[in-house]
């Protein structure tokens, strides 16, 4: 056997070993990744049932932290009361509902205009719609906070009326970031839609108004509903922008939760987090099931 062949043999062997190592790595990667994704959540749930206050070791199963929440007996160090939390939740629902209604209307309109209209500046508008989705939340939060402050100062200067941030500022902020998301979802639906249907309607003598309400709207309705649901969940979930635009007494659920989490780790907070996780998963699961049924019937 020549020396060249030997070298080749060696290199082949090394390649094979690298290959095997790589295969092992590829095999382990999903395991590690899924463990990474799920471990924190499982640990959180586990320790909400822990008998001792420690999160270092599991000493035994108990439900007392949950009953503490229900009975409103939480350690003096924590700013928790069930009533306050429910109140924050109500605030969230209130803000979410109104912001969703406005954002859905505005977002659907712009989606239609972008997809069906043709006017100068459309590409610029594309960018404008794209921006709120990509810029970091804190930038938008800061700019809105400053904007409201400046606007309220001017109102005070001009009319002598003092205006404070509150539900109105949160709602305006939520509408602003939700418009883009609604527009995206509705546009996706419009892109899927067969445009000849609209043409057929107008050929048959329907005016644009009739065409819209009889043909276009029913066809894009699932998209509009999907957009509204997205806006609602984003609104319920938002912390950063709400944190900067809310006033006294208009705490939403995430802002309230943030207040709790900033304090030390307590078993009650773990229990609350577990409940919230369960609720949001349940909520999304139900709406998914509903939507799944809706699409299969079509």
């Amino acid at each position: 056997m020549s020396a060249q062949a030997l070298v080749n043999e060696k290199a082949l062997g090394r390649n094979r070993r690298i290959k095997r190592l790589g295969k092992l790595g590829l095999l382990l990667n999903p395991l590690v990744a899924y463990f990474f994704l799920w471990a924190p959540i499982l640990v959180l749930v586990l320790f909400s049932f822990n008998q001792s206050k420690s999160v270092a070791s599991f000493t035994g199963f108990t439900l007392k932290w949950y009953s503490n929440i229900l009975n409103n007996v939480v350690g003096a160090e924590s700013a928790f009361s069930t009533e306050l939390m429910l109140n924050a939740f109500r605030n969230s629902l209130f803000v979410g509902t109104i912001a969703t209604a406005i954002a859905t209307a505005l977002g659907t309109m712009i989606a239609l205009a972008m997809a069906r209209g043709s006017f100068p500046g459309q590409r610029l508008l594309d960018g404008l719609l794209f921006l709120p989705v990509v810029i970091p939340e804190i930038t938008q939060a800061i700019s809105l906070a400053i904007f409201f402050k400046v606007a309220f100062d001017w109102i005070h200067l001009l009319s002598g009326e003092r205006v404070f941030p509150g539900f109105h500022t949160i709602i305006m902020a939520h509408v602003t970031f939700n418009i883009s998301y609604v527009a995206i979802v509705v546009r996706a639906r419009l892109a899927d839609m067969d445009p000849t249907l609209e043409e057929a309607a107008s050929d048959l003598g329907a005016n644009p108004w009739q065409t819209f309400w009889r043909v276009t709207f029913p066809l894009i309705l699932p998209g509009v509903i999907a957009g509204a649901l997205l806006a609602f969940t984003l609104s319920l979930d938002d912390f950063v922008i709400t944190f900067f635009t809310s006033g006294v007494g208009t705490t939403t659920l995430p802002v309230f939760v943030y207040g709790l989490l900033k304090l030390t780790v307590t078993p009650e907070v773990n229990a609350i987090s577990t409940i919230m996780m369960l609720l949001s998963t349940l909520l999304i699961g139900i709406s998914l099931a509903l939507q799944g049924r809706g699409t299969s019937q079509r």
Partner: protein
Amino acid sequence: MASFLARWMRGIPAYNKLLCVWWLAQVAGKKGGSFFVSRWFRRSQKDGSLLALPTVAWLLVFFVLPLVIVLVVSLMSRGRGGVAQLPLTLQHYERTFGIFSIILWRSIGLAGLTTVVCLLVGYPLAFFISTRRRRIVQQIALFLVILPFWTNFLIRTYAWRILLGDEGTINGVLRALGVISEPLQLLNTQFAVLVGLVYGFLPFMVLPIFASVERFNFRYVDAAQDLGANETRTFLRVVLPLTMPGVLAGCALVFIPSVGAFVTPDLLGGTKGLMIGNLINNQFGGSGNMPLGSALSIVMMGVVMLSLLVYVFGNRRQTGA
């Protein structure tokens, strides 16, 4: 796009910001948004700008105007109580690039590192998911990535406080095993922030890559190998370039929110892991400095815009080639 994904998108985008962002990034890669517009129909309608007017007005007032105000405020002096007043000055930018540059660079560095880690973990994971033969397994694999993200971001970040704390689970387990006697300082470090950021944004990387792997035709691999390319070469010359759009989109989607992160460093970073988002937040408290906060956010916006530009150009080169 694979029909599976299309179906998935129709069903779920409704609930997930993430998917929506990803979808948008995909579309943005295609030229000029003409993807949306059926041009043929466009011509047969009137211009439709009236319909756009209310929304445009809203966005101008509540999105563009506030950004302009931030820009103006960032150029003003600090008055009593941290509010802005005349005269105009550049001192806040000087401070941003002066004493605060360490935090600026830390934010960029942490965001870059987050992106790299997400890519290293996310790329093989996306391959793993998309190469499952049975559709149901694939769906479950994808679902398992997305499901944790139905929980509020705050709670997901808080979970890491439990794990990383001095009296936390990781230290507890290590101590029980006798590996350490003193607790390791894990929480309130840059490491904690990195972990939190990777945890928070990993799906933003996995989903775009998954989408491009789904579109990838594995027969190209056979072709390359028939033509004598080894595995490394096949990967570098065939697989990677063809999945590059997904990689680019994923990197942009991870890097941008990481640079502007506020909650993660706030809950996990302490003073050692302070990022630009926290610094901005601090300028709006009692002893704050609004013009400085504005200057910091303008600079952050600049970083974001720059990375967006890199993304757009990178994408164009990819699709143009």
